[in-house]
C-alpha cells in the first residue's frame, strides 16, 4: 500500500513538468483566446468587454468571407490533386526495386525542407523577369511572353502556389500510400492474377478498397493543412491582388499582429479552430480505425 502510493507520487512527479508545460502554453492560451475574443483588446490600452461584438464584426467583415472563401477554394483544388498524384506515385514505386526505392526517397526530399524556404524558392522560379518557369515556357514556345504569376490574377497565383505545394508535400501522401499498399497480403493480388485480372482491374478492385482508409486519412491531412495555409501565400502572393489570396490564417495574422486588434484576431482564431476541430475529430476517429 505504502509502496504503491509512493509509486503513484513518483510517477506524477515525472509527469508533472510536461503537464505544467501543456497547461501553461496550450491549455491556458485556449482559455485566454476565448476570453480575449469577448474584448476589445490591444497591448497599449486596457481590454474592454464587448461581448459578441467581435463575432458580429467578423460576420460583417467582407475580407473575413473573402479569406475563408479563398482558403476553401484552395483546399478544394489542392486536395484532389495531391491525393491523385500521391496515389499514382505510390502505385508506381510500391515494389521494392532499387530504382523505385530511389524514386521514393527523392520524392520525399521536399517534405523535409521548410515550407517558408520552399515558398521563397518557388517565388523565384515563378518570378516574372528572373524566373525559370517563364524562361522554360517562353523557350518551349508555350507562351509568347512571360506570364505574370503573382499579383495580377488570383486564380493564376493560386495554381502557381498549388504547383509548389504539390512538389513540397506529395511525398508525404505517397509514403503513407506505399505503407498501406505494402500491407496488403501478397496472396490477395496473386489470387486475382490467377483469375486473369489485369493490372488496373486489380488496382480498382483490390488496392483501392484495401487502402481506402489511408486515402481518407491523407485527404483529411490535406484539408487541415490547406485550411491553415499561410507561409506559401504570405511569401509568394503576399495576399495580392487586393487581398484576394489572403488566406484565413493570413487575415488572423494581419489583425492580431501588424494591426494589434488582438480581440478580433482571437475571435477569428476561435472560428478557425472550431472548423479545424471538426476535421481533426474525423481524422482521429479514422486513424483509430485504420490502426486497429
Amino acid at each position, binding site marked *: 500500500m505504502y509502496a504503491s502510493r509512493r509509486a503513484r507520487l513518483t*510517477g*506524477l512527479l*515525472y*509527469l508533472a*513538468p510536461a*503537464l505544467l*508545460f*501543456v497547461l501553461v502554453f*496550450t491549455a491556458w*492560451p*485556449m482559455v*485566454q*483566446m476565448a476570453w*480575449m475574443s469577448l474584448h476589445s483588446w490591444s497591448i497599449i490600452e486596457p481590454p474592454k468587454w464587448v461581448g459578441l461584438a467581435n463575432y458580429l464584426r467578423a460576420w460583417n467583415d467582407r475580407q473575413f468571407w473573402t479569406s475563408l472563401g479563398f482558403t476553401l477554394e484552395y483546399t478544394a483544388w489542392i486536395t484532389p490533386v495531391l491525393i491523385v498524384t500521391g496515389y499514382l506515385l505510390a502505385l508506381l*514505386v510500391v515494389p521494392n526495386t532499387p*530504382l*523505385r526505392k*530511389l524514386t521514393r*526517397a*527523392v*520524392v*520525399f*526530399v*521536399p*517534405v*523535409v*525542407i*521548410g*515550407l*517558408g*524556404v520552399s515558398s521563397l524558392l*518557388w517565388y*523565384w*522560379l515563378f*518570378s516574372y*523577369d*528572373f524566373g*525559370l518557369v517563364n524562361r522554360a515556357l517562353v523557350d518551349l514556345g508555350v507562351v509568347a511572353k512571360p506570364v505574370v504569376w503573382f499579383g495580377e490574377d488570383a486564380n493564376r497565383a493560386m495554381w502557381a502556389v498549388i504547383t509548389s505545394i504539390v512538389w513540397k508535400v506529395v511525398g508525404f501522401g505517397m509514403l*503513407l500510400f506505399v*505503407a498501406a499498399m505494402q500491407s496488403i497480403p501478397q496472396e490477395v493480388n496473386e489470387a486475382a*492474377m490467377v*483469375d*486473369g485480372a489485369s493490372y488496373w482491374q486489380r488496382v480498382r478492385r483490390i488496392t483501392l478498397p484495401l487502402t481506402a482508409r489511408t486515402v481518407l*486519412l491523407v485527404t483529411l491531412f490535406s484539408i487541415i493543412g490547406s485550411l*491553415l495555409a*499561410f*507561409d506559401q501565400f*504570405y*511569401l509568394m502572393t503576399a495576399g495580392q491582388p487586393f487581398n484576394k489570396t489572403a488566406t484565413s*490564417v493570413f487575415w*488572423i*495574422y494581419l489583425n492580431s*499582429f501588424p494591426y494589434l486588434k*488582438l480581440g478580433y484576431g482571437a475571435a477569428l*482564431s476561435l472560428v*478557425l479552430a472550431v472548423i*479545424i476541430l471538426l476535421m481533426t475529430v474525423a481524422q*482521429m476517429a479514422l*486513424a483509430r480505425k*485504420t490502426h486497429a
Partner: protein
Amino acid sequence: MSAEDTLVRPAPRGKDAAQAMPGGRAAYLVGALCMVIIAIMIAPLLVSVAASFKTTAEAAAIPPTWFPHVLSLDSYERLWSYQDGLPTYLFNSAGTAVLTILICLGLTIPAGYALARFPIPGKELLFVFLLLALIIPYQALLTPLFFMFAELRLTNTLAGLAIIHTAIQIPFSIYIMRNSFEAVPRELEEAAVIDGCSSWQVLLRIYLPAIRPAIVTVALFAFITSWNEFLAALVIMNKGSIFTLPLVLAAARQETSIGGTDWGMLQSGITIAIIPCVLFYVLLQKYYVSGFLSGAVK
C-alpha cells in the same frame, strides 16, 4: 478437349503475365517514368543551388540563365555580411532548434516513463490532456501566446520561440516516448530494482539506452520543426538581430540591391537553410519514415 484445357488453364497464364511485367516493355516504361519523376523533383533544388553560385551580374540577368557560366561565391559573401550577418542568423536558428530539442526531450522522456511504468490515477485522461495541442492548431493560439509572451517578456527571445516550437512537438513526442517505454521488457527493470536501483537510476541506466531510437526520432522532428518554422517566428520576433534564417530570407526577398531582389543572395540563403534538413534526411532516413508513419496514425 485436353489441349483446350491446358490452353485456357488460368494459373500459368496469370503467372506468365506477372513475369512478363519486369522483363518487358512495361519495365522500360516504369524505369523511364521513375527517371522523369526524379528529374522533376530534383530540378527546383538543383537550379536554386546552381543559382547561388552565379556571379552578381549573372544572378540578375534577364532572362535568367539555367546554370552559372562562371562559378562564384559572391552571393555567399553578400549573405555573410547581410545586415547582422549570416553567423547571427545561423546562431539564432540553431540555438532555437537546440533549445527546442532539449526542452522537448527534458519534458517527454520523464513523461513517457511515467505513463508507461507508473500506476498514476487518471492516467489516460492525463495522457489525452498532454495531446491537447492536437485538437487546436498552433496558428490559432498565436494571438493569446503573443500577448502572454509580451507580458512575460518572452518576445524577441530564442527561449520564447523554442517554447512555441516545443508546444507544437509535444503530442508527437509524448506519443513516441510512451510507446517506446512500453516496448521495453519489464524484466530488465525488475532485475535492476532487485539490485536496489531507484526509479531515477532505472531510467538512466536501463531505459535511456533502450529507448535511443525514440530519442533520435523526437530530437530529429523537433529540430526539423524548429529549423523550418516560419509563422511563430514571424509573430514573436520583430527585431532584426534576433531573426531566424527563414525570417531574414523573407525580409531579404523584399530587399533591393540594384533595382530588385538580390536573387543570388536569396538562393545562397535557401541553399544553406536546406543543407541540414537534407543531410539529416540522408543520414537518418529510417527514423524519418517511421516517425512520419507513426505520427500520421497517432
